[in-house]
């Protein structure tokens, strides 16, 4: 019974279940025991609530210290009321009359538990036997009540580990600083304190703690605490996590660069390469011994892939092996550095760091046709060993340098600024709205790639670890904002804009003007020819009296040059009987009754313009087809454009004809349905008056001195017949013929007939010639209009100098103070002199006193040679990055690098001529135990070929590799671009060029490149993360690409002179650079024979020889000896 009652009760309370309610009430009516049971249950429920409440009150009061609980009903009698609240109430109640106090209580609405708490507290105080309450000290109150509360509920997010909203609640100094929203606690004023607002959940944006609101008692504690001055004995610990600019002065990465002394002693002879000296010093320290040097075959394969990303051919290997001179390896290195393949390989390394892509990313991923120019510029820069500091400066401020530099360098320098523009780009149109996202990428990329500092972290707050402040970030932001950025195209604005020209501004302006002049000239010529043609053709008057009507096909609406809408046909039935205007023709136009907007339009190509003293003459023949049910009127309009400037209007129903005189319609005469009428108007633009007549030959109605449209501007080039007549309603059907407009008077009706004029032969010939010329010139004009006056780059140019305002939490609508454009404080804090500041920025980054740039790049070069940098975090030289394993070596290389004139090829020479570089990749258990990651270079680390090298190597070996440098990608033509987020750009272009020239798409990556862990173009990539996955293996086994390369490789193998053995050895050497062991050779020979035999059984296979060797080729191209470099 009880269960049933409680169930029903719950259904009513929680679900509002009407059926349950009825059932429950019925039960209670019928059964007295139900009433007893339920009453007790309800009372018990209250007891439970009350019990729970008291427990929580106790726990609050418990915190106060000394509480002695004596349960007296649900009263708690405290012997020593130590809780501040209790004392407070106690004091109040002693002051005021108990009656007033109770009144206060009774007036506090709805907040039952709070009320109960107060009630209980009053009861406590009133029944308390203690008259003198010792005031608890503020500190005690804090310690007992506030501190545990803060620890429990607040400090996880607002303490040492995390400072959400930049607020700390773990010390007085902490909360005194306030947070992102300002001051958090106003001592003495809880109602003004943001902390109280937050815990009371007053602002839906600020509900603290976010997971669960504090209880009312807890909130009361905080309020009391603040009300009494927010005593807080906790002082801040001295450890703060972020490094200050002061402290940075002692951090290794910021120490000024000095050339360290090379360790020289008996173990380190003077003749030794300094790199080896430094490495050896460390090896000794770590108790490691280097392995023997690599053999020559290994060395040439390693060096060739390292510098060019291609395998050495057997010829090249042979030449190196036979070169007995001392500097054989140095010569090899020089040969490789001279090869254009070097720039293609090492340029690609930089493109990783530069987050290069051929598309703009974001939703629609618009292609950037000019991006390849930046790519090729990078490759060229490496090939010609452009000083690295210039390389950097041009990428930051190339356009500015170009302006003041040599003319032949102009295009290159502007192209270089592609570094800034080719990041991931946001925005649906070329507007500043989403630029802050572009800048976030640029600032972060510049920081990481060039300085090894994660400046991007300071977008929302001071860097948590490094000496980079949010002001620093916005100092750079201003520089970016003072720049004009090429816009690649977006969902709203589907065309690129603001692409800088690759010719100087003056030249660009000149070329623009020349193009414009050409266009204007062509337009003029075409117009002149058209006019001549109009004059030659006797069947053309002004716009052509015939207006091309006779040549229209009957049975369908008239086509060009007429425009029609609605029910309308060319028909022989609409041929006017009048012949005083044109020779009698065969067809006219019949307009059916339709919408008012339906009708007929003709635009006179050579319309009439008002000339002082001249008049305009217009004529049209018409009739209403039959007595019509439609009461409405059609109209004739003559004026400029499609009702742009109205000259005259005439209108007719099937029975009445009216003209517009100024602002009013005037009925002129009656009409008989089915009768043809002719209308002529003589218009005088000087006086804005017109006259005319309408009727048949024998029955003309003349009208004079009528006003044209008051605002008519004197141009008549458009005739319209539609349904907006002087009477509302659907216009009747009507026939139209013989429309004419000219500057001389027409013949009067009754005169004539006008005979068709015959053209002289000479005129006909001239006409044909003119038509031909018009076509030529029109085509020429189109080509000229579509042509690009000068080449463009995807880059940046100077904009208007402006300082940025700090964006709080990185939100562009929460602006703080303006920040002047300047250098990072830790790097000098220099202010921008003039212009956007990019030239200054370029100089700050590359000046010799900058401790980072050279170190960062030198470390990258080391990493690209060895697989691992001296600093293992190549884009993070901050406090969270790894310190260098060989700090002196790093500094030595950096200093030498600068001294050499920032020559990258010099770095290669130093590094590759070292013994360290030339070590074998052999294993050594002892060394491995101490230094398994080879951090100290006891050997050369074997590495997998990266994506580009793998593909290039296969193409090279198969003979398919096209070494030509391709230019633009075959993107779809510009006028078809309509990419949106639902219809983004996507393409994969096949080619046999080197992989660095593949189209790199941002959003949907090239399938091969993605599979083999090429750099993700969405961010600056310092180090690729090679994976070994089954899908790669499947690609190697099954892809058409690998099969094709194998087949072509096989074709080459087949042409090798000699027997199978010779072919096999050649194949191995070409693919692996090694001569295999005899056992391997045998295995291969057996394999090929067996394969051949198998194939011969299947007589349908042609070229079985190549097929057999293809099989071996597939094995060679997909084995580890091919895919890895020792």
């Amino acid at each position: 019974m009880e269960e049933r009652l409680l169930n029903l009760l719950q259904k009513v309370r929680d679900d509002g279940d009407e059926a349950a309610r009825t059932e429950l009430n019925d039960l209670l009516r019928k059964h007295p025991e139900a009433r007893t049971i339920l009453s007790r249950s309800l009372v018990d429920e209250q007891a439970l609530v009350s019990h729970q409440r008291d427990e929580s009150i106790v726990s609050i009061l418990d915190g106060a210290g000394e509480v002695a609980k004596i349960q007296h009903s649900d009263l708690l009698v405290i012997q020593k009321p130590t809780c501040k609240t209790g004392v407070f109430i106690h004091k109040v109640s002693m002051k005021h009359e108990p009656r007033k106090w109770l009144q206060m209580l009774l007036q506090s609405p709805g907040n039952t538990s709070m009320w109960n708490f107060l009630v209980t507290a009053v009861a406590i105080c009133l029944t308390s036997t203690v008259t003198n309450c010792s005031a608890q000290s503020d500190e005690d109150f804090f310690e007992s009540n506030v501190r545990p509360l803060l620890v429990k509920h607040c400090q996880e997010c607002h303490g040492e580990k995390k400072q959400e909203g930049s607020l700390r609640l773990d010390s007085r100094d902490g909360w005194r600083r306030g947070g992102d929203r300002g001051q958090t606690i106003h001592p003495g004023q809880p109602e003004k304190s943001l902390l109280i607002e937050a815990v009371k959940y007053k602002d839906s944006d600020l509900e603290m703690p976010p997971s669960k609101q504090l209880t009312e008692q807890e909130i009361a504690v905080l309020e009391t605490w603040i009300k009494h001055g927010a005593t807080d004995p906790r002082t801040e610990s001295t450890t703060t996590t972020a490094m200050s600019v002061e402290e940075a002065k002692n951090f290794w990465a910021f120490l000024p660069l000095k050339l360290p002394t090379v360790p020289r002693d008996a173990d380190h002879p003077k003749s030794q390469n300094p790199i080896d000296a430094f490495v050896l010093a460390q090896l000794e320290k770590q108790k490691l011994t280097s392995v023997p040097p690599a053999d020559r075959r290994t060395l040439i394969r390693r060096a060739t892939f390292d510098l060019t990303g291609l395998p050495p051919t057997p010829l090249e290997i042979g030449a190196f092996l036979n070169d007995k001179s001392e500097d054989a390896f140095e010569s090899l290195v020089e040969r490789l550095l001279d090869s254009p393949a070097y720039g293609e390989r090492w340029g690609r390394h930089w493109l990783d760091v530069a987050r290069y892509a051929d598309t703009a990313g974001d939703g629609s991923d618009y292609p950037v046709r000019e991006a390849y120019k930046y790519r090729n510029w990078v490759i060229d820069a490496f090939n010609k060993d452009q000083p690295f500091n210039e390389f950097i400066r041009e990428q930051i401020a190339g356009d500015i340098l170009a302006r003041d530099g040599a003319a032949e360098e102009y295009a290159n320098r502007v192209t270089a600024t592609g570094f800034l523009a080719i990041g991931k780009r946001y925005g649906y149109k070329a507007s500043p709205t989403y630029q802050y996202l572009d800048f976030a990428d640029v600032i972060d990329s510049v920081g990481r790639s060039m300085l090894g500092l994660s400046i991007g972290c300071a977008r929302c707050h001071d860097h948590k670890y490094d000496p980079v402040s949010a002001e620093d970030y916005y100092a750079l932001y201003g520089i970016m904002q003072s720049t004009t950025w090429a816009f690649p195209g977006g969902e709203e604005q589907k065309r690129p804009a603001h692409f800088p020209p690759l010719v100087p501004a003056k030249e660009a302006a000149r070329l623009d003007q020349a193009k414009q002049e050409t266009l204007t000239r062509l337009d003029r010529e075409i117009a002149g020819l058209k006019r001549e043609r109009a004059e030659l053709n006797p069947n053309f008057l002004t716009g052509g009296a015939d207006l091309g009507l006779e040549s229209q096909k009957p049975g369908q609406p008239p086509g060009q040059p007429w425009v029609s809408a609605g029910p309308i046909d060319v028909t022989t039935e609409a041929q006017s009987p009048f012949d005083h205007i044109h020779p009698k023709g065969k067809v006219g136009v019949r307009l059916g009754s339709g919408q008012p907007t339906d009708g007929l339009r003709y635009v006179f190509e050579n319309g009439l313009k008002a000339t002082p003293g001249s008049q305009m003459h217009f004529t049209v023949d018409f009739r209403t087809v039959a007595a019509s049910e439609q009461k409405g009127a059609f109209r004739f309009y003559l004026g400029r454009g499609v009702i742009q400037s109205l000259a005259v209007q005439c209108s007719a129903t099937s029975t009445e004809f009216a003209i517009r005189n100024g602002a009013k319609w005037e009925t002129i005469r009656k009409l008989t349905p089915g009768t043809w009428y002719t209308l002529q108007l003589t218009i005088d633009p000087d006086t804005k008056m017109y006259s005319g007549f309408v009727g048949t030959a024998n029955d003309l109605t003349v009208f004079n001195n009528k006003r044209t449209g008051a605002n008519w501007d004197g141009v008549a080039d458009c005739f319209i017949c539609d349904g907006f007549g002087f009477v509302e309603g659907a216009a009747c059907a009507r026939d139209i013929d013989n429309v004419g407009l000219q500057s001389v008077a027409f013949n009067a009706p009754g005169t004539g007939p006008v005979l068709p004029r015959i053209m002289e032969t000479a005129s006909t010939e001239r006409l044909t010639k003119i038509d031909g010329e018009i076509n030529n010139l029109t085509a020429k004009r189109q080509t000229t209009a579509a042509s690009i006056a000068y080449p463009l780059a995807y880059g940046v140019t100077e904009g208007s100098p402006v300082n940025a305002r700090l964006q709080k939490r990185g939100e562009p609508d929460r602006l703080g103070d303006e920040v002047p454009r300047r250098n990072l404080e830790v790097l000098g804090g220099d202010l921008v002199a003039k212009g956007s500041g990019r030239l200054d920025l370029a100089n700050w980054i590359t000046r010799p006193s900058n401790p980072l740039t050279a170190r960062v790049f030198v470390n990258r070069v080391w990493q690209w040679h060895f697989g691992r940098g001296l600093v293992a975090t190549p884009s993070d030289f901050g406090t969270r990055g790894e310190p260098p394993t060989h700090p002196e070596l790093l500094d030595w290389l950096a200093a030498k690098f600068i001294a050499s004139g920032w020559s990258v090829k010099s770095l290669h020479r130093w590094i590759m001529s070292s013994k360290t570089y030339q070590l074998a990749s052999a294993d050594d258990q002892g060394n491995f135990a101490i230094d398994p990651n080879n951090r100290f270079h006891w050997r050369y680390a074997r590495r997998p070929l990266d994506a580009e090298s793998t593909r290039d190597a296969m193409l090279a070996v198969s003979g398919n590799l096209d070494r030509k440098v391709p230019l633009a990608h075959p993107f779809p033509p510009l006028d078809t671009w309509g990419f949106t987020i639902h219809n983004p750009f996507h393409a994969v272009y096949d080619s046999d060029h080197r992989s660095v020239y593949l189209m790199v798409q941002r959003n949907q990556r090239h399938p091969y490149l993605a599979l083999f862990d090429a750099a993700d173009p969405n961010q600056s990539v310092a180090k690729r993360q090679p994976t070994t996955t089954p899908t790669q293996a499947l690609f190697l086994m099954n892809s058409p690409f690998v099969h094709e390369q194998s087949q072509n490789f096989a074709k080459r193998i087949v042409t090798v002179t000699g027997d199978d053995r010779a072919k096999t050895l050649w194949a191995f050497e070409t693919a692996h650079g090694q001569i295999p062991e005899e056992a391997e050779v045998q295995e291969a020979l057996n394999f090929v024979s067996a394969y051949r035999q198998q194939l011969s059984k299947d007589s349908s296979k042609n070229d079985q020889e190549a097929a057999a060797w293809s099989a071996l080729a597939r094995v060679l191209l997909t084995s580890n000896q091919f895919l890895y470099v020792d």
Partner: protein
Amino acid sequence: MLPPSDETRFIEALTRHQPALEAFCHANRQDAREVLQATCVKLWQKSVDWDPDTEFLPWAFTVARFTILSHYRDQKRDRLVFDEDVIQAMAGDTEEAASAFDERREALALCFGKLDQLAKTLLHDHYTVSQSLREIAKASGRSLSAVKMNLLRIRQQLSACIEREMRTNP
């Protein structure tokens, strides 16, 4: 109004018997607080009628009954659980149970202590923190009906226990 000493006694009595009053007013959970408030206001206004030497609760219950009924007449809402006549019928039983509130309360305290921790937590969340059963279900990942059943069982347990206590230790 009352002479000061009487007044103090009234206040004492009123505050002391709050829970019992609340229990009595708890015919309809939704309105209980308002009804209780209205009752207390009424009691205060009529405080002169109470003889401090007599029992407080029976007098208070009378006032409460009238307040509840007039409250219902004033605002007939569809969230009421009980019909008017049912309330009248139940009044006697409610009074009786509410009178024994203090004893039941003490028994409850003992019985509560015998519950396991999970049960205590559930009761705490629902009755002290005022989380709805739906919220509790969501937070614990159990289904709503499972939580409902659980609560029901616990209350039945407590009920039975209280009855036992009342009988054995009156």
